[in-house]
């Protein structure tokens, strides 16, 4: 299993905790997914509201490791402050760093991302940057201290799958020893399987499971796909070819013409 900052993960499938129809469905989806890591966030709360406490109780009952995010942050300062608050709330140095640069695509701001990552790494955070498949950006993130990268498959919440296979293959090939997980844009288990077949270490999903008609069943579907894809990667798939080649031996065929 891959190591994320000296922690060996228990599953290559990670799940978000947002958008489920109910806490019960969320818990069932986690149970059937086998996910060992859950992404969470921090949000404003009014005095006496206690929604955060109830959610935290639910997450603790899941028995998973949490990965807080800085979702929705558009500036370095906002992301850094959010990360600092998340570290205190969740008592973990892990932070999924999002610095959004474009409203319609939710594409990361590469300049802000590197700067925020640099500050947070210097402050002792273990940063999981939400990034693109850009190899130069990846190199910069590693140079400021990131030891895990989270390239997108497609824009958040789109379910489009792996829209730039060439870019993702290149990223995987350029950084063979860096844990890489596909974060965002996956909609179907087949897309997760493809990511795993390409050699990515893990996938992180939220909308694809939470917004499925049956989130728990979809969570299990993704879990099986991730396992199948990883097995296929480890098994060294055959190379595709243009010409047909009979799989059944030609020798010994009955002559019936």
């Amino acid at each position, binding site marked *: 299993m891959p190591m994320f900052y000296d922690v060996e993960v228990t599953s290559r499938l990670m799940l*978000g*905790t*947002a*958008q*489920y129809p109910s806490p019960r469905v969320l818990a069932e989806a986690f149970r059937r997914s086998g996910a060992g890591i859950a*992404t*969470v*966030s*921090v*949000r*404003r*709360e*009014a*005095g*006496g509201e*206690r*929604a*955060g*406490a109830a*959610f*935290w109780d639910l*997450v603790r009952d899941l028995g998973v490791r949490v990965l*807080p*995010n800085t*979702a929705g942050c558009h500036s370095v*300062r*906002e992301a850094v*402050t959010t990360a*600092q*608050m*998340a570290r*205190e*709330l*969740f008592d973990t140095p892990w932070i999924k760093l999002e610095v959004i640069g474009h409203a319609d695509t939710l594409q990361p701001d590469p300049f802000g991302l590197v700067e925020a990552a640099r500050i947070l790494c210097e402050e002792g955070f273990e940063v999981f940057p939400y990034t693109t498949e850009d190899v130069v950006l990846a190199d910069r993130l590693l140079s400021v201290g990131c030891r895990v990268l989270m390239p997108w498959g497609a824009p*958040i919440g789109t379910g489009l799958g792996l829209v730039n296979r060439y870019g993702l293959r290149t990223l995987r090939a350029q950084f063979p020893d860096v844990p890489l997980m596909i974060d965002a844009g996956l909609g179907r288990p087949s897309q997760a399987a493809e990511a795993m077949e390409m050699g990515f270490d893990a996938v992180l999903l*939220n*909308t694809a499971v939470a917004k499925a008609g049956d989130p728990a069943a979809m969570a299990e579907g993704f879990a099986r796909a991730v396992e199948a894809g990883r097995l296929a990667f480890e098994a060294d798939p055959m190379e595709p070819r243009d010409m047909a080649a009979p799989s059944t031996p030609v020798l010994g065929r009955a002559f019936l013409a």
Partner: protein
Amino acid sequence: MKITVNGTATEVTAKDLPGVLRELGYGDGKVATAVNERFVPASARSSAVLGPGDRLEVVTPRQGG
């Protein structure tokens, strides 16, 4: 004095951060705080004094992707 709490203008009487949090009903809840966009760790709240116009953010754990 009037401060801004989570984006809403709010009248408070306490001046220190722990007092303001108590006054607003957060009690001993699991919250993290920032004043004027700067993180204030729980360990530093007792020495954090608020003034008129300050912007207080109070956040808790929430669902995320």
